[in-house]
């Protein structure tokens, strides 16, 4: 086990930021910590890194109790903070070299690692730039390069794609998958369910400082009753249509969004066919039709009663 957190409690006065949080990250996996803003993801990461004192619980990393002076454990960890933490006064190259130098003393080896990190995140053309001259996406890539240059065994990424353009986001996500394929264990936090769904092998969903569900994405989706989400473009909208659809088997909700009929169903067979048969029976013309499987947002919605991005 790479990380083992048990019954972690962190209080800020009366506010409970972490409420008996427990999680385990296994070697070689990409573990996603998914939750809305303020759910306690960053607090959990800070506690794991011993940046915050906690009130109760235990944290083990690589089988040893984590503490501020656990320097041999820290040496194996790469951290990419939510806020970009680089020196504005140092160039891109100097920044990566500085952070890599905190872990690797040998100059020759360090130079090789820094060059590899620059290559890895694709910022070779910007090595002499100062951070303030970089775009948001490039800055995030620099932040990642600073965190991974020393080739850590465990990489903790705390919302690394916030305020990043799609191109850089894809680059970052691809990079994380590559790091994992090269042997690094990843702990990834985000409030973007698509990202977590795309790259994580196991996911824990957090809300109000608690893990409310965890497992693979398939396991998580299997925990809920929600089936697919059906979207049908109609050329005629009538409230009687909603009433009729709601009377169909397995249908949980139906509503119009403009001329789109959006229907949620519980698990069951042929829900889409039954809906289309009904519309045909009412002689209603149909345009485009989509059927989407349940998402992690549906999981979150069903468990907490609110949207992930609320």
């Amino acid at each position, binding site marked *: 086990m790479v990380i083992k957190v048990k019954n972690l409690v962190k209080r800020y006065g009366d506010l409970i930021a972490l409420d008996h949080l427990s999680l385990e990250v296994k070697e070689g996996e990409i573990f996603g910590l998914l939750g809305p803003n303020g759910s306690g993801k960053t607090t959990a990461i800070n506690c794991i890194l011993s*940046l915050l004192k906690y009130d109760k619980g235990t944290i083990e990393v690589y089988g040893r109790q984590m503490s501020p002076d656990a320097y041999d454990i820290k*040496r194996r*960890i790469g951290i990419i903070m939510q806020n970009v933490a680089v020196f504005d*006064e*140092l160039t891109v190259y*100097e920044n990566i070299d500085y*952070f890599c130098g*905190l872990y690797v003393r040998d100059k020759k080896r360090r130079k090789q690692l820094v060059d590899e990190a620059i290559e890895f995140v694709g910022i070779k053309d910007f090595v002499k730039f100062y951070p303030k001259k970089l775009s948001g996406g490039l800055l995030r890539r620099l932040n990642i390069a600073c965190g991974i240059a020393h080739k850590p065994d465990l990489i903790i990424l705390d919302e690394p794609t916030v305020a990043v353009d799609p191109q850089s986001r894809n680059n970052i996500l691809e990079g994380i998958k590559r790091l994992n394929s090269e042997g690094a264990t990843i702990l990834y936090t985000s409030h973007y369910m698509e990202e977590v769904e795309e790259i994580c092998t196991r996911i824990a969903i957090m809300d109000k400082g608690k893990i409310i569900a965890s497992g693979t994405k398939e396991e998580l989706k299997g925990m809920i009753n929600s089936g697919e989400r059906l979207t049908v473009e109609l050329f005629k909208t009538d409230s009687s249509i909603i009433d009729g659809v709601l009377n169909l088997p397995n249908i949980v909700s139906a509503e119009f969004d403009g001329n789109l009929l959006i229907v949620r169903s519980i698990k069951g067979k042929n829900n889409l066919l039954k809906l289309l048969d009904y519309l045909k029976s009412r002689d209603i013309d149909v345009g485009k039709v989509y059927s989407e499987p349940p998402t992690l947002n549906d999981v979150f919605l069903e468990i907490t009663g609110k949207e992930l991005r609320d």
Partner: protein
Amino acid sequence: MQVFKAFFKIIVKNLGQILIYIVVFLSVTVALTKLNNTADYTGFTETKVNIAFINNDEDSWLVEGLRNQLLKHTNIISVDDDTRKLQDALFFREVEYIVRIPHGFAEKFLNKEDVTIEKTTIPNSSREIYIDMLINKYLNTAKAYISYSDGLSGETILSQIEKDLAQETKVSMAFPTDNITLIEQRAFFFNYLAYALFAVLILGVSSVMMVFGKPDLKRRNLCSPLRQREMNFQLIIGNVSFAVITWLLLSITGFFLFGSYMLSLNGLLFMLNSLLFTFAALSISFLIGNVVKTQNAMHAVTNVVALGTSFISGVFVPQDLLSESVLRIGSFTPTYWYVVNNNTIANLVNFSTEKLVSIFGNMLIMSGFTAAIISITLVITKQRRTSN
């Protein structure tokens, strides 16, 4: 030594602002030295006071002798014997002393009766004493000859008096090769150094400390395997190196301006004094760097601390011209003790134990400031760490 290297990279990035203070300091001190070195001071020059000499007595060898004696050391100005005109002459400083020989003076004096010479002077004039001394010296000598040399003629007595009074004592100046301007320049250079050092150190040190104190960078560094103790050690080495380099750079100008004087005991004391002040200024800069959070605040604090302490401690305005209450406030800053020492060292000729004890005592006070401020900074940083 990643932190140490980063320290100097941050300094280099802020070099523009730092250089402004260094260039201003060098320009001002060099300009003042080069432009203000013409007024040579030769040690002692006799000046002649303008006086009026009014004789209401009859002409006699005694009065004529006095007049001639005064003429050697004063300028006798001719003023009509009219009260109003004499008062005007005094008021407009045409004369500073009026000697009036009363009627019957010579006769009474030769008969050994008590007599007085009337004098009118400018109130509180320091030169009054000088003229009094000249007159008293002449009359006392004359009285001695008249009392104890019976039978000598007036001419003989007069020639004896002139011979006696012509005798002079040779005075050697204690610092014959120096002049007042040079002494003032040295004191000014090292006094002004306090402002330049303070400004440069606050800017440099607080720029770096602010960067390392940024919450995100601080947390990022804490995640690394670099021990906190080692990180602090590298920061301290960086701070001390920067301070010593700044001190060397600024004080080395003194060697260009004052040459071999800087290798004299005075020069070495100046250097030691400025080095100890550098550490005191460094400790204050370190405190500011740990307290200040923004660039704007840093510039404001630089001006307030560097300029403020310089003004109240006698860097720009001589301490002699500052009021007692200002100096009392100034004495709560190391700059005050630094300036006191500079002024003492500049005028130091006789390296007496008393003088050296005073200088080293002031150096101890400066070192005390350094220790106290570092302790306060450590307490503040520790409190912050534990309150998190």
